[in-house]
């Protein structure tokens, strides 16, 4: 298939792996930022093709994972209200709050709907003026433009029964928090390709200089990821720390200006609590004051919900690249996608859930067979 198969070509993949082996002299720890990249690495077995000296650690870029438990509980509290239609992207439905997940609430009679675009919520709101339609606006910079567009249209068209529960997070402050930690192990990054399609590459130039770390903006297909790793390894081996763009077919330096304009006209930057990581200053979006009439937190007065995370879960350390899923005693035993204890197990793009889905919780002997 055009634009897909050519990025999954086994002969080209072998060639890049061979080049990585040729270039690499010392051990390196590289973090892929995006959950989509993590999923692709585990699904295609990319990490199992790499030389032993290249360790991939999995970053905080799964928006479902890092959505705080408080916000999930707020979404659930809103979904329980009479007369509410809660709309969400599909993968939020199985994420457990403190008590249950949205699927369970749906089975109890809550009107919970999966949408593919926030603009679909506006259609629902127009069709059901007797209902309050709430969109659970989760995501990184990638999904922000469409969510902003929904709020903007709602305001323009005077759709008063529509609101957003906003849980937007931003990548650069998270990367900055990881690199600024005294426990940091990460020596190079695969940057978030689709975030940069929207925001451009320039935000990462400052990080490269400040932390002297190579960042290669990369795509999501196997060859994108392998080429990105090769570019990071080349920089590390030659002592360079630069911003490079592997994903040239999609990312331009200045990003998508029109998308940025709609985002900044609807959202403003705010502090945000990340599940597993904790609060990171200036790391999220909230609605601007002129759009507060569409803020579900205000409309439904769910501001004071407090929650407590499992004390066993080490997802915060995993999201920062300090630990791997196998380092957790609960991984695959008391913590599974059916019964997740924390951030990295709740979504298919979380590192723990990806490891689990592709059988990496199974015993070592079986995994040895997988390596055959």
């Amino acid at each position, binding site marked *: 298939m055009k634009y897909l198969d050519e990025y999954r070509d086994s002969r080209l993949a072998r060639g890049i792996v061979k080049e990585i082996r040729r270039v690499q002299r010392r051990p390196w720890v590289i973090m892929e930022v995006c959950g989509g990249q993590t999923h692709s690495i585990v699904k295609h077995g990319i990490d199992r093709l790499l030389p032993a000296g290249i360790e991939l650690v999995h970053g905080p870029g799964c928006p479902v994972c890092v959505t705080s438990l408080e916000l999930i509980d707020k979404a659930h509290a809103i979904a329980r209200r009479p007369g509410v239609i809660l709309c969400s992207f599909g993968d939020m439905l199985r994420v457990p709050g403190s008590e249950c997940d949205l*699927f369970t609430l749906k089975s109890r009679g809550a009107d919970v709907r999966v949408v593919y675009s926030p603009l679909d919520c506006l259609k629902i709101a127009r069709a059901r003026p007797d209902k309050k339609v709430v969109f659970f606006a989760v995501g990184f910079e990638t999904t922000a433009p469409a969510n902003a567009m929904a709020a903007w249209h709602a305001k323009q068209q005077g759709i008063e029964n529509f609101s957003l529960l906003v849980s937007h997070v931003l990548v650069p402050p998270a990367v900055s928090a990881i690199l600024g930690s005294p426990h940091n192990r990460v020596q190079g990054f695969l940057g978030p390709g689709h975030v940069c399609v929207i925001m451009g590459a320039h935000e990462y130039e400052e990080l490269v200089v400040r932390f002297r770390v190579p960042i290669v903006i990369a795509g999501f297909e196997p060859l994108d990821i392998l080429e990105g790793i090769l570019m990071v390894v080349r920089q590390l081996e030659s002592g360079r720390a630069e911003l490079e763009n592997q994903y040239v077919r999609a990312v331009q330096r200045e990003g998508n200006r029109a998308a940025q304009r709609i985002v900044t006209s609807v959202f403003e930057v705010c502090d945000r609590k990340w599940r597993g990581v904790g609060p990171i200053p200036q790391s999220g979006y909230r609605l601007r004051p002129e759009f507060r009439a569409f803020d579900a937190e205000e409309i439904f007065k769910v501001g004071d919900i407090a929650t407590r995370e499992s004390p066993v879960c080490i997802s915060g350390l995993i999201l920062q690249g300090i630990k791997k899923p196998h380092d957790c005693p609960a991984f695959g035993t008391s913590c599974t996608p059916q019964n997740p204890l924390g951030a990295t197990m709740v979504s298919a793009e979380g590192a723990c859930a990806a490891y689990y889905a592709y059988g990496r919780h199974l015993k070592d002997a079986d995994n040895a067979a997988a390596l055959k």
Partner: protein
Amino acid sequence: MSDASGPEMLGSCPVPLSHPEQIVLGHGSGGKLTADLIQRFILPAFSNPYLDRLDDQAVVPINGSQLAFTTDSFVVTPLFFPGGDIGELAINGTINDLAMSGARPLYLAAALILEEGLPTSDLQRVLDSMRAAAQKAAVLLVTGDTKVVNRGKGDQIFITTTGIGVIEHALQISADRARPGDKVLLSGSIGDHGMAIMSQREGLEFEGTIESDTAALHGLVDAILQAAGDAVHVLRDPTRGGIGTTLHEIASRSQVGMELQESALLVRDTVKGACEILGLDPLYVANEGKLLAIVAADRAGEALAAMHRHDLGREARIIGEVVAEHPRMVLMKTGIGGSRIVDTLYGEQLPRIC
């Protein structure tokens, strides 16, 4: 829950998530939740040697004959979709469940649950396509029932079809008969039916229509059995849960491992594109006109050639083999040369955010 959260419509749900207190949609997914439903509720209630085999049909002896017996309910939305409709599906689905035991399907029964307000023209259309599908497959619909429920208590039409077929050979075909060395054959492309439904249901406008592959497979089964006879160990139609779930079930029931080649799988471009957009894995997407055959290696070539000669098997291929190592586990060599494990899904596949 805080006081500020207002009146609670639905109460709280402290039960562990792995065993939901209510039926959730995932119980109908064909994945782990469905297996859990059967193990916890169905088997304890009715356990007997025929049911306990958990094949798609029961094979029961009656007066010296071996009869295959099965039932299946169809609740698809929308009723009409590219490549078929609920009526055709209801006939073909039950025929296929019979055929996977090697039976010749003979008679069907159909129960229709109609929702108040259903246009009779829609009913007529569904019945017409049931008749056409039954005629094409040379089976007779010999009995049935109709019920009407209040508006809102059903979804237009639910159809349950029950079928009887006769087994006219002494072959043993069952999900527990895969043996190391056997080849895994697949009759064509995967994911067509599931993505045809999803693209209609979600109003996704993809370039190029995705058509359901609904088809009655007993003719293809007959061709395979003629060619490879007792070398055919397992036949299954990978419907809900897709080939991933079905192969995992076979590996578990037979206590064997499997090794698949991703490069051998055929996924049509439209299906692949839709799956990529929604973040779904075609391995777990439903098929309604495909079969998996597990055949002893020395006769696999003959089985494959016979499939190629049949209309519904022109794109058949060998996608992997059964191994003695890693029992109950399905491994797949990925297109780029890595490896992954193909596990059963917990519930329904969920579209991803980005």
